[in-house]
């Protein structure tokens, strides 16, 4: 079956989710990128009145200090993306390395590492993150990211280990060994490319988790300090003004929701395609 045809025929069905996901994630990504070069106002400029409702001047209204909320939402997109991407990158760097190591290790070490992943997973991501944040001298975006990354790593590790074991049992690995390839080159040329699609799907899910966890951290007051306009912090700051200025709490909530659901939909779509391409012939 030809690839282009399958895309067209699937467009209407399950792949609607893919496109919707792409639309959401794409919009947020573009907004985040745009915020690097342009925002309607300066983040800290107190240009509006106190808690103004959305208007033509201030699309999302203003906060207590009269700062433009739309600007904060844009910067928030940037921060959410940075947090998601870097936390996942850290989680992946640690998780993939240990996961592959475990898959290769002798039975004892493998068991030990596998159990270790399980134990670390027993500390839920957010608790790990809370601890790490508390353990660092100053709460900053960096510590929050590091914390989330460390929190995600055992999950990634466990999945990597399983995927690697699956790939290791394939004949092409034996074939590569018989062809004289060394273990490092097998890892690099055969294992990584083959676990990547599945791992990627999973990492995308972890991305959603990380964004959500950062929001929770910020909500609990353990996240990035001001002036970082993270969506979770915006929510926390707006919580006291839910009655007088509900948009301040609704919009960041919707933004988190849109990003997470966007990533999940995108992931689902990707997974469907991946399954389809693996099923070929």
């Amino acid at each position, binding site marked *: 079956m030809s690839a282009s045809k399958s895309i067209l025929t699937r467009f209407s069905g399950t792949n609607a989710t893919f496109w919707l996901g792409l639309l959401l994630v794409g919009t947020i990504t573009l907004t985040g990128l745009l915020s690097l070069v342009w925002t309607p106002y300066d983040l*800290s400029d*107190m240009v509006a009145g106190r808690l103004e409702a959305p208007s033509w001047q201030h699309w999302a209204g203003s906060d207590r*200090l009269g700062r433009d909320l739309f600007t904060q939402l844009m910067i928030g997109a940037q921060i959410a993306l940075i947090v998601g991407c870097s936390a996942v990158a850290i989680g992946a760097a640690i998780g993939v390395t240990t996961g592959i190591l475990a898959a290769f290790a002798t039975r004892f070490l493998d068991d030990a590492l596998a159990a270790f992943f399980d134990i670390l997973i027993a500390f839920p991501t957010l608790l790990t993150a809370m601890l790490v944040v508390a353990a660092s001298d100053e709460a900053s975006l960096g510590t929050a990211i590091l914390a989330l990354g460390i929190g995600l790593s055992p999950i990634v590790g466990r999945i990597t280990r399983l995927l690697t074991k699956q790939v290791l049992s394939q004949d092409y690995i034996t074939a590569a060994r018989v062809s004289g390839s060394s273990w490092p080159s097998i890892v690099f040329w055969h294992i990584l490319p083959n676990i990547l699609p599945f791992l990627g799907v999973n990492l995308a899910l972890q991305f959603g988790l990380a964004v959500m966890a950062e929001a929770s951290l910020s909500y609990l*007051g353990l996240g990035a*300090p*001001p*002036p970082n306009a993270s969506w979770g912090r915006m929510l926390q700051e707006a919580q*006291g*003004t839910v009655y*007088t200025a509900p948009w301040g709490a609704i919009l960041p909530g919707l933004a988190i929701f849109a990003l997470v659901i966007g990533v999940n939909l995108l992931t689902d779509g990707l997974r469907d395609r991946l399954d389809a391409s693996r099923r070929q012939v």
Partner: protein
Amino acid sequence: ALLTASALTLTPAAGLAQDYTPDAVVNIGSLYEPQNLDNTGGAGQGINEAFNGNVYEGLFVLTDGGDVKPKLVESYEISDDGLSYSFTLKDGVTFHSGDPLTATDVKNSIERVTAETSSSSRKKSLSNIASIETPDDKTVVITLEKPSISLPYNLSYVWIVNDAATDISNSEDGTGPYQLQEWRRGSALALVPFDGYWGDKPTNGGVMFQYFTDATAQNNALLTGAVDIITSIQSPDALSLFVDNPDFTVSEGASTTKELLAYNDRIEPFNDAKVRSALSRAVNKEKLLQAIWGDYGTLIGSFVPPTDPWYVDLNDVNAYDPESAKALLAEAGYADGFSFTLDTPDYDPHPVVAQFLQNELAKINVDVKINIITANEWYTKIYKSHDFEATLQEHVNHRDIVFYGNPDFYWGYNNPEVTKLISGSESAKSIDEQTKMLTEANRIIAEDAASMWLYLYPQIVVSTSNVSGYPLNGLNSQFFAADIKKVD
């Protein structure tokens, strides 16, 4: 309860002879849960709110109006040199455990506060007590090293605790109108009237302090009738729900809570009064107050609130004037500005205030780095180690200008003139003399811009309209519950 249905039963119980229900329990919402039950054990302001005057009583009481009156003291005499006080205790006072009040209890209670292991914030004010003697069961004689005009005031927050009581952190044995019924950490603390109370019986059937970790949840509880009173509203946005609503009573009391930016006056560049003045002038405090409190709150230009006898309006000293701020800064040698780290407690309103300051000071090229810390870190890092450049804090206490007379205080303000005035005021012969000296001290610290005093919080109490008789000012975090009346 499927709603205590405050809104419905409100219509004043027509025809009823009594104007309150004697056994109604009053629910009080608070954000300040005590950490333990011992006010000398780092329990926080919450324990004063719940226990002071309710469970424990002092020899004197600081009334909600700000007067110091005898409580457990029947009468007292001061020696001519002002160094010796002889107190006669009231008769018929018993502790909740049934023990009668004796002079030894008083002696021990005072020594508990001044003890080395005590972490009472008032320890220092009592440090010039030379000795306490108990010639008989009803008499206590305190000898001072130096005269202290505010000894009765200072004794108003010394709880008289039964000396037979053992576990003060987790239980109580006081003489107050209420005794502790139960405390569930993280949730609530309940007091019930004490049958053997020596004074007037409370006008309610008990009080329950319900604790919240955030103001929104607290407001919700008041809205849904889960609590009857909120002792101090934390934002004007919440107020809009209650103002002009016949179901609720909003009252404004006299506040003593001051928001301030405290510099570490020991270090460069904050040891230079010019720099401090410049910063003060660069910040539009009116705008800040508007942002945080809308139409509430007041600007006082100094550390002394209008309830203190030594208050004067000092708003004109170092008033908002960015141009002169720049000039002053240049004069002090910082024409290009400088940068400092602002340690900011992590709870409202400090982070928002910090951002406002950051923005204002940026206009005179002063770069502020915001560092969010927890209340606990604030105590260890700033209050104890003095390891900071500048910080934000709210100071709730009544008559606390004395802190500027203590060069070892966390902000390290050291002006010998002020120190002398403040310590001298303690030995003043009369209230007038004391007031005069402290007014002078107040003026000097304002001119010196010892700290940047941002605004005075409003003191707003909101209750459902079926309760009355509660204190409005909440001086020193006290909240006397015995006179609260509730119609059920």
